[in-house]
């Protein structure tokens, strides 16, 4: 039991003494999650818009598939991306295995369904007269997309926060694709898995506190952005 309190306190020590191993893991986590957020937002928002806005045969089935992908296990995504990136795999020549962009690739797959599903729901929930109005005002397809996304920005921001939460806390992809290599691909979550494996439970708890601190910082920044957007 005592390792809980000990770990909690040690988390602050790691953060405030600038522990180099901890900060290396923090920057790896921030780097991979930033890349994967950029990836899942730039791909996910247009796809989510199309899914919510367009009417086409098989739309319901596609919606169900996307909703199902919300439950994609991270270890399986890790395995899939590993199969692609291993030197014998189709993308083996890229040298992305055991690298941060490799991790980001898997995490983008993890974040995509969340962004797509929540964007589609947000677009569907908008006033049905919006596209009509835009068309009568002479907007083209791209302007419709932009205006609709702007109208749904709070819901999309919520989608981003949800996707970020899943991405930053996953361990299966980072472990399988990144390999938990010290100073290179060791993220906070793989470091926690390692410390727990070593029996250093207090250190595991401490790193858990560090991860929460990182997430808190990101969310404070995001809510700052939201305030700006309202103004």
């Amino acid at each position, binding site marked *: 039991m005592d390792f809980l309190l000990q770990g909690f306190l040690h988390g602050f020590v790691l953060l405030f003494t600038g522990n180099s191993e901890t900060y290396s893991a923090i920057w790896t986590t921030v780097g991979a999650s*930033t890349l994967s957020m950029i990836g899942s937002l730039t791909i996910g928002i247009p796809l989510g818009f199309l899914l919510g806005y367009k009417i086409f045969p098989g739309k319901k089935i596609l919606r169900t598939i996307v909703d199902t992908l919300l439950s994609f296990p991270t270890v399986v995504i890790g395995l899939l991306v590993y199969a692609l990136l291993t*030197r014998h795999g189709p993308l083996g020549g890229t040298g992305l295995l055991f*690298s941060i962009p490799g991790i980001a690739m898997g995490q983008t797959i993890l974040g995509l369904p969340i962004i797509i599903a929540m964007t589609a729901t947000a677009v569907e929930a908008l006033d049905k007269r919006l596209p009509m109005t835009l068309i009568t005002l002479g907007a083209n397809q791209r302007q419709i997309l932009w205006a609709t996304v702007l109208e749904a920005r709070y819901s999309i921001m919520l989608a981003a926060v949800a996707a970020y939460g899943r991405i930053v806390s996953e361990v299966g992809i980072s472990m399988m694709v990144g390999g938990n290599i010290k100073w290179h691909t060791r993220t906070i979550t793989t470091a926690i898995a390692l410390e727990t494996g*070593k029996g250093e439970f207090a250190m595991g708890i401490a790193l858990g506190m560090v991860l929460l601190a990182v997430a808190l910082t990101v969310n404070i920044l995001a809510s700052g952005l939201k305030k700006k957007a309202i103004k």
Partner: protein
Amino acid sequence: MNRLYGFALSLVLALALVLPASAGQTLMMATTTSTANTGLLDELIVPMFLKDTGIEIKFVAVGTGKALKMAENCDVDVVLVHAPGAEKVYVDKGVLTDRTQLMYNDFIIIGPESDPAGVKGMTVTDALKTIQAKQAVFASRGDNSGTHKKELSLWKSAGLSVPEKSAWYVQTGQGMIATITIASEKNGYTMTDRGTYIKYADTKGGNPPLKVLVEGDKVLFNQYSALAVNTGHCKDAQYDMAKQYIAWMASPATQKAIGEFKLLGKKLFIPNAQ
């Protein structure tokens, strides 16, 4: 405008983080959890090799089964493992070559100090028979690691079948220290390599709840070897660097350093390169 600027800045930052910091040579190695969890690699081998040769070792610590698989998939240049039987299979397949024995420790059977099944001081065969007869809890790695393979071979050589589905036989599917922790929570027995046990004892302040009960039997010998990935199997493998690493591991200076690597005043690995 401000937001666009912020976005561009974060993009640049992310890229700066992602691009490799230095263009120095790196050697990819797959190894077992025991060499990593004891701190041997992080605290001794990796920094010392970097200082001596300028080559950085990047290692992934997985079970021996997965380490060998990674070699077969050409994801690493060299492996440091401890399952002679499985190593031979991969050498015969042409995946690995230049097998070099580097160091050993031994396996031990540990259990609660009260020793409910009463196996203290027995031979391995008698101890396993007793554990089975008394249905005492025994935690197994169950993950195809070197230690797991060894444990399976011990049941077999004791003339017993592996108690696969018995309620008292707990297959954790996890690393060694996690398995020891589960054994101790269940007041049961398990088999571990001595290096990991000493590391575990160290995290418990030198007084762990599980004690060494069976040791010294010669079937418990645990040999660690390094093998290079064969360029005939993986044409991009960095064979020369792998050979350089293996020779360096077997050199007198490194062997001496391995022998001096201690926790709680005890050696974790005993060098035995020829």
